């Protein structure tokens, strides 16, 4: 059904990556009649392929190509080759994501204005704001079927949520509910309702959770305007003498190189691969990499201030049963510097199966302090902390020329160190998280360190002034008029919210912009 396009067809838009950014953008362009070739490094896995098994699923879906790490974050010590837990597959990390779908708050779009100067941080206001984004958010929520929006019911609370809710109420928290989730509480858009299976991170076998893999991708292909090439690993973007990009060189499943010509190129490979690709595409005309006249490509890497709190009780919880992240406390998401930090954080239910709990509760831990925690696994409740981290120029993705991937290309080195604001916020959240569980009788709590990153943001940030960032308000690079960035690497600041909904909203908006520019003859 999908239209095969010729490698020499330079009328197509090439989209690199098929996740929340690239997958949605590809479909939205195809729906508008635009010809698209989407290049996806991974293979295609659908609900029948997903497995309810943490390590097996990790082997199936995770991006395991080599990367390196540096900086003072604990991930660099405990998971030095695995800075992120993201997916290499058609649909990208929308197969793995938990489904939490929150709009960035009004004040967060203007972090520099509202937070003021924060020493050591490279805060910046987004060139767009909440009022401009609200209509796109509404389209995104409708696409994803987000609960508690558009008249859609919330999900029912599972055991893990009930513990969180009871503790939160005892502490006086008021904004406590089962979340705004891209997981169906009732049949919606040809997808069935959640069956409370757990394993949301391993791909939803019911298709109750929205994923581009089985919604936007096949719908785009059905138009005849979208061709998705699987196991097509992009090596570099090329340009002509006029400085505009003219195509993309990729390796196919057999390692053979091809060049797909293009009218324009949209990069959506996640906040590691997107800057890496721009840097790996350096030429004599662009010696520091594409779109990098500002020197900002790869900088301001953000991963959200995260952490977890687990609590052990004297009776069973069985937190793994049911929707993994359908539970939230939003009271701490406000900006209130009296707490000792700028920005805010959300608290969301989280559970890991026994295998991942053993790996992530206290990486490197051993002995009875560790094993008595796991002995209480059945009686454990869990929450995830997700808050705004400070952008820092020195937190960045660079090329590691000493380590090459399977195609001989330098891998991404991911350097990250916490900002003092991140640490202050995390400590506050650890205290509040423990208090929530203590309020309902926890016998022991665990302030668990951040996992390999799932929210990877910044590194090609959006800025009004070309000096301050890589892309403009439409995600178009400041330097090259037919080169776009379409994933979370556009984020100017991270805000406190899980980023997928915003990535999707930006992708819909960008598709509208690109189609309009094409019809005006500008692209």
């Amino acid at each position, binding site marked *: 059904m999908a239209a095969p396009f010729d490698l020499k067809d330079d009328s197509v838009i090439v989209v690199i990556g098929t996740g929340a950014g690239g997958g949605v953008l590809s479909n939205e362009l195809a729906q508008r009649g635009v010809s698209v070739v989407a290049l996806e490094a991974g293979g295609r896995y659908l609900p029948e392929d997903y*497995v*309810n098994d943490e390590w097996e699923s990790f082997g199936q879906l995770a991006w395991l190509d080599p990367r390196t790490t540096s900086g003072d974050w604990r991930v660099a010590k405990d998971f030095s080759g695995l800075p992120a837990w993201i997916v290499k597959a058609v649909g990208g990390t929308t197969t793995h994501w938990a489904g939490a779908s929150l709009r960035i708050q009004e004040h967060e779009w203007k972090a520099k204005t509202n937070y003021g100067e924060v020493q050591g941080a490279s805060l910046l206001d987004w060139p767009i704001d909440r009022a401009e984004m609200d209509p796109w958010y509404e389209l995104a929520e409708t696409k994803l079927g987000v609960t508690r929006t558009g008249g859609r019911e919330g999900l029912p*609370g*599972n055991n893990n949520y009930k*513990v969180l809710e*009871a503790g939160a109420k005892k502490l006086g928290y008021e904004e406590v509910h089962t979340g705004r989730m891209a997981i169906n509480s009732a049949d919606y858009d040809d997808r069935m309702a959640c069956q*409370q299976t757990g394993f949301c991170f391993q791909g939803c076998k019911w298709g109750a959770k929205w994923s581009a893999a089985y919604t936007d991708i096949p719908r785009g292909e059905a138009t005849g305007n979208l061709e998705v090439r699987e196991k097509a690993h992009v090596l570099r973007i090329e340009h002509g003498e006029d400085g505009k990009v003219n195509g993309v060189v990729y390796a196919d499943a057999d390692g053979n190189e091809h060049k797909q010509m293009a009218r324009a190129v949209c990069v959506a490979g996640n906040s590691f691969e997107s800057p890496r690709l721009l840097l790996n595409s350096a030429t004599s005309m662009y010696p520091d990499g594409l779109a990098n006249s500002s020197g900002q490509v790869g900088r301001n890497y953000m991963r959200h201030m995260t952490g977890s709190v687990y609590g052990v009780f004297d009776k069973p919880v069985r937190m793994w049963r049911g929707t993994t992240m359908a539970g939230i406390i939003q009271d701490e998401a406000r900006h209130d510097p009296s707490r000792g930090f700028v920005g805010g954080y959300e608290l969301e239910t989280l559970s890991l199966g026994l295998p991942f709990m*053993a790996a992530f509760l206290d990486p490197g831990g*051993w002995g009875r302090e560790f094993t008595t925690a*796991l002995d209480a696994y059945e009686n454990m409740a869990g929450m995830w902390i997700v808050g705004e981290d400070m952008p820092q120029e020195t937190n960045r993705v660079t090329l590691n020329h000493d380590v090459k991937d399977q195609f001989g290309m330098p891998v991404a080195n991911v350097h990250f160190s916490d900002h003092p604001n991140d640490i202050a916020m995390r400590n506050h959240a650890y205290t509040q998280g423990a208090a929530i569980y203590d309020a309902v009788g926890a016998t022991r709590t665990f302030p668990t360190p951040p996992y390999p990153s799932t929210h990877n943001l910044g590194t090609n940030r959006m800025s009004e002034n070309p000096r301050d960032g890589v892309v403009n308000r439409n995600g178009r690079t400041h330097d090259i008029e037919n080169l776009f960035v379409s994933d979370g690497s556009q984020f100017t600041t991270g805000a406190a919210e899980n980023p997928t909904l915003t990535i999707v909203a930006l992708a819909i908006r960008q598709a509208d912009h690109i189609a309009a520019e094409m019809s005006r003859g500008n692209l």
Partner: protein
Amino acid sequence: MDDALQKGLTRRELLSRSMAAGATLVVGAGFVAGADAAWALETTALKPETMATLIQMARDIYPHDHVADEFYAVAVKGYDTPEAAPGIETGIAGLNAAAQGKGYADYLSIGWERDRVDILRALEDSPFFQQIRGGLVTGLYNQKAVWPLFGYEGESYSQGGYIDRGFNDINWL
């Protein structure tokens, strides 16, 4: 249970062919077994005494009193290969040397867990310790047979999830 672990030895047969190695293990020619004869693990590349010490080390790293030795044996039996064995023999020899430095005959003859753990704690940054500990994270906790011992239910899709099986059955809040 893994095929590599034999079951059904008679206790008499076992004891006639083996000698005690620590509190709960016995070793014989080419095998390690539980002292209760509930299981036995053949060794080909590793000395059986080495395997017995490795099993005890595994338990001392991740002690779960309700998890039987055989699960720890399964977790480390993958080191019984010609490729892995030399490094393991060297590592365990180091463990025994540390025990001897504290006046014990060897690691397995140390009666209290805390005294064995003291030795491990002194070695915890060594590549050998980290190899064994890191391997156990999946070798032990990713055994499906271990999961029920912790109450973990594993796969649920084939049973229709928990929508009718207690996703919200908590009753003590």
